[in-house]
């Protein structure tokens, strides 16, 4: 091929491909992939997703940053993903470092390695990829010759476990801050990349950027005391970045269309960012406030242009709760009626909630084949759902399920959490009761329906009201799953799936650990523990050994209830939420007190809007049909509240 970069590793990489699984992971060449010129005037970013190609490629955050950087005159960006274990060992055997997919250049040829931290369990992969890049693992060991290691994404909201390995974190929306960082980096590069300390200090001056090495962590009595800046340039609290208007950032404009199969292999158009429903377990909802809707006409244009450009026949309208989008009905109707789209196009509406969808929308979207439907009531009893602030009554769920089965669906999946504050065995068994009732409803319409109940253990997350709550132990979660297995067994058509409680515990460790957990991560990585989010590679034993070696206990980090005044490892990081608000909301959870959705009810001052001078950007002053929690405008349960979701993906329940 022409235009191969002179330093391309391709001729060394290609001979490995015949003997590894899914070699198309390593070739690049996607529609939308860029071939940037590596010139001295441009800061070279390698954007790294620390999981496999097929998981990482669809990540919209990475693609947005990729386009924004490549549009700049003073920046270029290429991508890398974690090579699967077969490829990694082949690469290490041949001394081939982590490489970019566009030019197949070694990672060290870039000025910056920027990691996307979408989940906690990828932590050991981050270390592995830094090492595979040939960059010293620890920030303090890196020299002027090494690239800077940056990170962003939802898991960066507790940056402490990875603080020893990442030079700087960017918190919150990346659209603006990435440009500001690039300007600082461009000056550093132009000056010959001297003084690592200097560039880190300059980065720390940018709002939303956290440079861990500029902070002193102190402990007393085996517990965290405080994380304090060492120098005046570093802010005492790093506040996340928030873009005010999604309309100004219509990205990705040229979504990557891969040559090989990936997850979520369809066009994605983000219809809004943020969520104000206030589900107390949901970190995504808490840290992305306020709600910022994209104008409906822009959504329609992005869908139309995106489908025409990509050749996809399926589009997903993404957000944390898509049915809440003011323009949802119009947008769906417009897309489906577009003569250019004809009958081929299908619309996916992930992350719909059980209490918010209209009959009209369901009817429109169900066109084409019907896959399974997914609802996420999260709690097994109404009491539990008040604790979670997921205000779905049993009747709401039944009406939704009835609507689904009566319209011809045969499979329904229900997502639940266990290990919740104040939870009793009765609450847990309520999950099975709901499942049974849903099967009974389905049988009225078809003799063979299946209802799958999917259960995961609550992992309390930083910056949520549950950040003080002690996570259930493996034994407690095993007990609860056991109760459900017994309860579900005699019911034909009802099946149970559960997330491995052992994995939940490690997620808990990484979600709420302090800087000492970095040693644990390194230990696990050195013991070969990569791809820990993959069931076949996850190994709790590795983590327990590492904790023992580091003198830390799961009890202390994960299972213990924390006190209100206790220092939290992320207290110096702000998602805009008042700590007082979160504590009060936690107390209200325990008292089963509901909190309405502040999009359509008066502000209760969580801190985000008042602190940042922003407010929700919504096109409609009315809550969506189908009701919205606590606004007193829910449809009566007797009416059919239909929630229809087509081929809904797992992302719908995660929060």
């Amino acid at each position, binding site marked *: 091929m022409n235009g191969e970069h002179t330093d391309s590793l*391709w001729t060394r990489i290609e001979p490995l*491909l*015949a003997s590894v699984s899914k*070699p*198309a992971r390593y*070739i690049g060449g996607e529609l939308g992939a860029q071939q940037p010129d590596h010139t001295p005037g441009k800061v070279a970013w390698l954007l790294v997703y620390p999981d496999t190609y097929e998981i990482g490629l669809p990540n919209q955050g990475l693609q947005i940053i990729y386009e924004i950087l490549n549009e700049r005159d003073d920046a270029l960006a290429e991508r890398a993903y974690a090579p699967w274990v077969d490829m990694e060992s082949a690469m290490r055997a041949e001394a081939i470092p982590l490489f970019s997919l566009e030019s197949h250049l070694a990672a060290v040829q870039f000025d910056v390695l920027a990691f996307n931290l979408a989940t906690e369990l990828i932590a050991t992969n981050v270390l592995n990829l830094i090492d595979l890049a040939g960059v010293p693992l620890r920030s303090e060991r890196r020299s002027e010759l090494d690239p800077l290691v940056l990170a962003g994404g939802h898991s960066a909201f507790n940056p402490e476990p990875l603080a020893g390995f990442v030079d700087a974190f960017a918190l919150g929306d990346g659209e603006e801050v990435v440009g500001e960082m690039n300007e600082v980096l461009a000056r550093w590069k132009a000056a010959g990349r001297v003084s690592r300390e200097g560039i880190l200090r300059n980065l720390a001056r940018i709002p939303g950027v956290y440079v861990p090495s500029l902070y002193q962590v102190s402990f007393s009595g085996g517990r965290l005391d405080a994380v304090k800046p060492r120098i005046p340039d570093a802010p005492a609290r790093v506040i996340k970045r928030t873009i005010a208007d999604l309309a100004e950032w219509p990205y990705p404009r040229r979504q990557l269309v891969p040559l090989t199969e990936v997850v979520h292999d369809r066009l994605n158009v983000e219809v809004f960012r943020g969520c104000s429903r206030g589900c107390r377990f949901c970190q995504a909802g808490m840290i992305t406030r306020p709600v910022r809707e994209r104008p409906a006409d822009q959504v329609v244009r992005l869908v139309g242009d995106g489908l*025409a450009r990509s*050749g996809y026949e399926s589009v997903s309208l993404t957000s944390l709760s898509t049915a809440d989008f003011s323009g949802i009905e119009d947008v769906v109707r417009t897309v489906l009626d577009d003569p250019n789209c004809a009958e081929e196009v299908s619309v996916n509406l992930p992350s719909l909630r059980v209490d918010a969808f209209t009959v009209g929308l369901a009817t429109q979207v169900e066109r084409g084949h019907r896959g399974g439907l997914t609802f996420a009531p999260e709690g097994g009893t109404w009491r539990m759902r008040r604790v979670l602030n997921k205000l779905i009554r049993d009747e709401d769920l039944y009406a939704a399920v009835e609507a689904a089965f009566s319209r011809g669906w045969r499979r329904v999946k229900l997502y639940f959490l266990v290990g919740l504050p104040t939870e009793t065995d009765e609450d847990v068994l309520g999950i099975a009761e709901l499942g049974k009732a849903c099967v009974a409803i389905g049988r009225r319409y078809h003799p063979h329906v299946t209802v799958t109940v999917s259960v995961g253990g609550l992992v309390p997350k930083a910056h949520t009201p549950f950040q003080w709550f002690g996570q259930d132990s493996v034994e407690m979660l095993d007990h609860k799953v056991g109760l459900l297995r017994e309860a579900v067994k005699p019911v034909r058509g009802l099946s149970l799936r559960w997330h491995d409680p052992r994995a939940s515990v490690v997620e808990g460790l990484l979600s709420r650990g302090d800087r000492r957990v970095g040693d644990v991560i390194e230990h696990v990585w050195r013991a070969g523990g990569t791809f820990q989010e993959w069931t076949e590679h996850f190994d709790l034993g590795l983590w327990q050994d590492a904790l023992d070696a580091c003198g830390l206990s799961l009890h202390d980090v994960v299972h213990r209830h924390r006190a209100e005044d206790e220092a939290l490892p992320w207290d110096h990081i702000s998602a805009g939420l008042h700590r007082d608000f979160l504590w009060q909301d936690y107390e209200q959870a325990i008292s089963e007190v509901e909190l309405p959705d502040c999009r359509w009810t008066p502000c209760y001052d969580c801190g985000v809007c008042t602190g940042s001078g922003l407010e929700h950007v919504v096109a409609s002053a009315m809550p969506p049909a189908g009701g919205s929690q606590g606004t007193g405008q829910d449809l009566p349960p007797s009416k059919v509240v239909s929630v229809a979701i087509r081929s809904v993906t797992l992302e719908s329940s995660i929060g």
Partner: protein
Amino acid sequence: MKARLRFSKLGKVRWTSHRDVARMWERALRRAGLPVARTGGFTPRPQMSFGLALPTGCESIAEYLDLGFEYPVRVDELPGVLSPLLPEGVDVLVAAELAGDMGSLQQEVTSCTWEIQVPGVCPSDLRAVLEGVLATAELPVRRERKGREVEDDLRPSLISLNSEESVEEGSLLVAETATNPRGVRPSELAKALGLSLGRACRTSQWIEHGAIRREPLALPVAVVMGEPVSGRAS
């Protein structure tokens, strides 16, 4: 109306699978806005049918795709319209309208020609190996099938094996292999012959009826006269 396309798969894109290629085509056809007919049934699909699957990692200048259209299209324009919409390395070489009574590619194709780079062996040594194999009645290979190791004989599928000079180091094995009783992958052929495998390129698929042997679509002269396939760099 039906049309048959002959296309290439060269360079990096050779590491994609047969299924990946099908998806690329579906997207390219949608982007082109061509009136591809759709199958009936519960989940309508575009009417496309591919010939023999090309093993992942092999290159080709002889891949075929039959397409059904809702109404007639300018067949001579298809290469120019579609090639820019396909990934780099996948190009439509020639297109022709297909008579209604033509059988499917899968049924009709009887053999394939492969050009296989054999590094580390000079052409005369390779010739000796090939003559030895052709003189025997059997070429047993062991392979895994559904988790169990089975023994198989490649010899009945070998029509001709020739050794030629290569533009690269080593030599070039030109093999014609039958599709019956079963097709032969270049990788298993090289293994059975005790040779290491360089790049492999399918240069032709053949349809044999009695004494007549032809390609489903012959390459236009301009393509044939181009540089030798085996010398292509990625």
